[in-house]
């Protein structure tokens, strides 16, 4: 992953290359076959999303399409107003990613650097917010949002996930800020920077890589959320991509190639995002695991 590990493995790899045993090849074969099993569903979706229903009926799911057929995708796109759903998902996830990072930074500043009293119970409370099953919040939140007129409004989902994601962000950032070099903060203070300035001019710029990872994660997590968008965004115009696609699955009228097209449309945005942010993501997963 990092440049150094690549270098090291590259070197030993070169030295050992002559000594590849039969066992090594068997391990490689097993791993590659398992990996093929993992991607097989994606390949099936890809093949069948571009078939016409009659092509599917004659050739079955495994044949390559006889001709590229975009009707399934186009029909599904129209039917669910996919452009609108994409925009909803993008807007919700984007706003949540930014706001949740801001809230996490403010919380973690007080806990990790300000060392406010009672920070351990505070961190536990934030952690609890992240572990709770969302069903526990569902009905009270439903009532609250109905009362204040935010029910079936994307902002109900945005507010909820800003809190849930920043609970995790606070937990992670508080420990990162806890090890922030004291000298830098002292230097800033000697320079006459107050706390507010120190936070935005010193701590945030220095922690930018961490904040970037958090933002990417918050975006993906929010994009993938299901239960709360399903319950709070009931009207067609407000739904997110996963909700819109799953709601249509019960529709018995949908033929098998349209279902395949819908699955392709559902996975494509996250796949593209994954390819763009591959390195950030693997950095972030590592960071989340080893605290």
């Amino acid at each position: 992953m990092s440049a150094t590990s690549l270098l090291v493995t590259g070197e030993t790899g070169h030295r050992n290359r002559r000594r590849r045993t039969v066992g090594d090849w068997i391990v490689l074969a097993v791993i590659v076959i398992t990996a093929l099993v993992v991607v097989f569903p994606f390949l099936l979706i890809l093949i069948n999303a571009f078939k016409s229903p009659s092509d599917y009926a004659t050739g079955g799911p495994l044949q390559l399409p006889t001709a590229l057929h975009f009707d399934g995708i186009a029909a599904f796109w129209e039917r669910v107003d996919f452009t609108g759903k994409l925009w909803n998902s993008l807007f919700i996830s984007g706003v949540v990613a930014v706001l949740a990072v801001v809230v996490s930074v403010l919380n973690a500043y007080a806990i990790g650097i300000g060392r406010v009293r009672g920070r351990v119970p505070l961190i536990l409370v934030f952690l609890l917010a992240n572990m709770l099953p969302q069903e526990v919040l569902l009905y009270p939140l439903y009532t609250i949002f109905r009362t204040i007129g935010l029910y079936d409004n994307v902002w109900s989902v945005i507010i909820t996930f800003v809190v849930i994601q920043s609970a995790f962000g606070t937990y992670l950032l508080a420990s990162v800020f806890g090890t922030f070099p004291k000298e830098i903060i002292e230097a800033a203070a000697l320079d006459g920077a107050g706390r507010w300035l120190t936070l935005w001019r010193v701590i945030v710029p220095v922690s930018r890589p961490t904040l970037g990872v958090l933002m990417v994660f918050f975006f993906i997590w929010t994009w993938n959320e299901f239960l709360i968008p399903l319950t709070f965004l009931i009207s067609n115009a407000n739904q997110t991509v996963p909700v819109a696609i799953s709601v249509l699955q019960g529709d018995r009228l949908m033929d098998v190639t349209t279902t395949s097209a819908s699955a392709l449309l559902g996975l494509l945005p996250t796949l593209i995002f994954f390819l763009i942010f591959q390195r950030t993501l693997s950095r972030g997963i590592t960071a989340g695991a080893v605290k």
Partner: protein
Amino acid sequence: MTLIESRADATRPAVAPPTGRRRGRGDSLVPFLSGRSYWWYLLPGFALLTLIILVPLVWNIYLSFTDYRGIIAPQWSGLDNWVTLFHDERFWLSFRNSVAMILAMVIAPTVIGLLVAAALFDVIGRKFGAKLAAFLRATYYLPQILPSVIAAIVIGWILRPENGALNTILQAVGLGQFASNWLGAPDTALVSLMVVLVWIQVGYPVVIFMAALERVDPELYEAAEIDGAGWLRRFAAITMPMIRPEMFVVALTCTIAALKVFGPVYALTGGGPNFATIVPSYYSYSQFFQNQQVGYGATIATALTVVIMLVSIVFVWAQNRAERKERER
């Protein structure tokens, strides 16, 4: 780990040399006592947390002691819901299914992930190049980045009874008699759901364990190899102990996810057929919005929360104990 490294790297250029120019200004002489308290910074976050998490949590616990059905104001009904819950076979069934979810989302992925990560790191990374290992790792991780409902739909499509891919393949290779209504038949639905969850879940431990293995000093392996230790021996004596902290993290986060699982169940089976795949979170959801038994749904949700808290406490306690033992050795 990487996170901390990169942060330390970024630290360097930001250290501004103290000029001392403004040192005379009031509060800068006592830098850490100056100005307002840090409490102000917690205000927005904590207010939001209270409104969105703490109040609803307490409210939900209150609802679990009422007969609320969503229309007339809730009436206090004491322990009625809780007594019902303890005698509700469907509730116990949903928790038995949670055990199946733990098998599918924790045990199986951890075991497979451990073997795959070790093979990728130990054999493929070193004998066939780091690039190939990284590529294969990304392949295993692919199902993880999808919204789990979409992942479920992808597989649900393959498992369709009529003209689904799996049955078509079985017929094509002459095993047509094994074709089945995988998600619709009571005896195969749970197992099919479990297979889907293993597929979704397996990339997470692979990535985490591989990252953990990069911490291991390669000389440790080389020394063991020179001493004539076989692969299995190296796996047991070096790999396993080195990645124990990550195994705890994976086990805890995946167990919580398994207890909370909702999306795939909703998208694939809706808890059916005949409640064969019902899980606590789906059961509570269906009480809220299908049966209008809000009070009872709140009871199930609260019970699930209690279970998750207990499991987390046990995990953290076990981890601390293991770490203490490690230090004493």
